[in-house]
């Protein structure tokens, strides 16, 4: 039986993780994500899991990666400053192909910025924040329901692709309370199977290696150095390095259409909003207030890899309007693919766009 709850977004994220079988949480308190850690601290021990408050965010993500190698579904949650501290080890997770889930309840930056206010300023950092080339998956929830659903989904994607998966929430979604329907169970896919006796970093047909869980006698060496299929350092072999990094990117980018998760409203429209995260709610209000205006809307849940093919669905589009709580981070990404003008509607300060603000943009372009 499904049941209905009235939850805060952060609690929904923690519950989604528990439903997905998360059994390890390593974290550090930071506004506005702390409720996730607090909820996991209360719930995980009762489920046989481990909650540990680490000494900083570098240690939080390190402990998560360590736990993941024992086969545990593992996560952390943070916000801007902590997210910045995690970057080096996020690159390590990408390089070592370690499944892990990182929730970022975004707040205003840079630096300490606005701890209690919403922002989407970390969208490029989650994609490119660690040094070197790599690829990740980032999901963006726009409701308490999606805090639950997309957190659970993040664990499946992390396992399937052996990659860090980000839930890029924001303070509004994290702290908002609304109705949520809890499903009986959530889908649970595992990590690609490891074939004992084969090289531990030899990719399968999807470019993802099987996962050799620690403690089974496989004797796997895991290193952040450039490594061969056996997992051993080969840091001065140019061809090997190029092939490894290319595969780490290709395994995600080549699955872009499969990973895409978006909704389309009025595909014949000339003016089309594109949004993810809490600005989705403002766009929805505009559509609700003007039901006859045939405004197009591309509402994105998987932000990275960016679902470029979704743009071509709007064949009559004259322009894409992109409201974001940053100075146009994803608008710039959309410009790379769009054949029509892209209007960035940035908003800083921590408040959402008002429906009136977005309606004015529409009127100006009509």
């Amino acid at each position: 039986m499904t049941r209905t709850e009235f939850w805060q977004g952060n609690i929904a994220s923690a519950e989604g993780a528990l439903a997905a079988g998360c059994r390890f949480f390593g974290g550090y308190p930071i506004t506005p994500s702390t409720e996730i850690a607090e909820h996991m601290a209360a719930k995980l021990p009762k489920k046989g899991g481990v909650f540990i408050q680490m000494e900083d965010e570098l240690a939080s993500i390190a402990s998560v990666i360590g736990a993941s190698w024992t086969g545990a579904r593992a996560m952390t949650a943070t916000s801007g400053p902590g997210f910045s501290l995690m970057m080096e080890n996020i690159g390590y997770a990408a390089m070592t192909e370690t499944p892990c889930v990182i929730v970022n309840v975004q707040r205003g930056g840079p630096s300490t910025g606005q701890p209690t206010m919403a922002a989407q300023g970390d969208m490029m950092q989650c994609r490119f924040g660690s040094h070197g080339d790599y690829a990740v998956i980032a999901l963006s929830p726009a409701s308490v329901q999606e805090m639950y659903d997309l957190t659970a989904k993040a664990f499946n994607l992390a396992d399937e692709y052996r990659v860090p998966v980000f839930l890029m929430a924001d303070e509004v979604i994290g702290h908002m309370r609304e109705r949520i329907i809890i499903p009986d169970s959530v889908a649970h896919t595992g990590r690609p199977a490891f074939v004992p006796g084969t090289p531990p970093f030899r990719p399968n047909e999807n470019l993802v290696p099987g996962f050799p869980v620690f403690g089974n006698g496989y004797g796997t060496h895991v290193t952040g150095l450039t490594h061969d299929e056996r997992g051993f350092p080969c840091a001065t072999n140019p061809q090997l390095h190029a092939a490894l990094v290319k595969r780490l990117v290709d395994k995600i980018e080549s699955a872009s259409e499969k990973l895409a998760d978006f909704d389309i409203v009025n595909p014949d429209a000339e003016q089309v909003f594109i949004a993810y995260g809490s600005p989705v709610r403002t766009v929805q209000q505009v559509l609700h207030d003007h039901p006859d205006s045939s405004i197009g809307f591309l509402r994105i849940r998987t932000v990275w890899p960016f679902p470029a093919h979704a743009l071509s669905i709007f064949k009559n589009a004259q322009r894409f309007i992109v409201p974001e709580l940053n100075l146009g981070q994803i608008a710039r990404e959309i410009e790379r693919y769009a054949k029509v003008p892209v209007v960035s509607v940035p908003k800083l300060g921590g408040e959402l766009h008002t429906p009136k603000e977005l309606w004015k943009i529409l009127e100006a372009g009509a």
Partner: protein
Amino acid sequence: MSFNEWLRQDRLPHIYCAGCGNGTIINCTLAAVDSMGWKKEDTVFVSGIGCSSRAPGYIVTDSLHTTHGRALAFATGVKMARPDLHVVVFTGDGDLAAIGGNHFIHACRRNIDLTVVCMNNQIYGMTGGQGSPTTPRGCLSTTTPYGCTEPAFDLSELAIAAGANFVARWTSYHVKELERAVKTGLETPGLSFIEALVQCPTNFGRRNKFKKVADQIEYIKAHSLLKAKRDRMLEQGEPIPEDMYVVGELMKRSRPAMGIPKKEAAP
């Protein structure tokens, strides 16, 4: 079984310079691990970055060669998620005491059931000989070209103050004592910290008037002061020379520990 069976023979020769002391410490550690009768599938080696941290790459078990300074945080995740695994951490003075200092004191405070073997060569070897938090005052390195002016960290005293259950310091000269100390560390629940002073002929010795590898080992030996003797000297009010390293079992206690398998947990 001999400790040789814990080595990935196909990965040898190793990257260490001729005369390096790290191999001695790895041998002592593996001999101690072997004497525990542990299964390879139940044992995990974790390390950070630096010369010391390349050790797990030569060991047949599952191993995590992680980021600079963070070995203990990764090891904490492994151990808390699977308390039944034996987790041994290799680290060095730069990895542990500089960039990883915060993780070091908190792992000791938690008293998590890890055995940490620190190869203290008093220098950054991998990057070519820069001063570290344990470089003795007055010693030369590429970043202390006029002599180190900072006081050195006493890693073992730090571990004791932070709460580790077992702390011992030996050197690459004291191989039997070192092996025994590592074994005691492996047997002791909670965090065991074993500091091993090692010679680094390439980057420490040659800049600090040790013309031969043996010269530095002789120096380390001559400047080792047994804890028992140090204690007697303290009792008699004798001053302890600043350039002496106190060696021996420096702490053994049974504070509550984390990461202990439930069935073995104390009531």
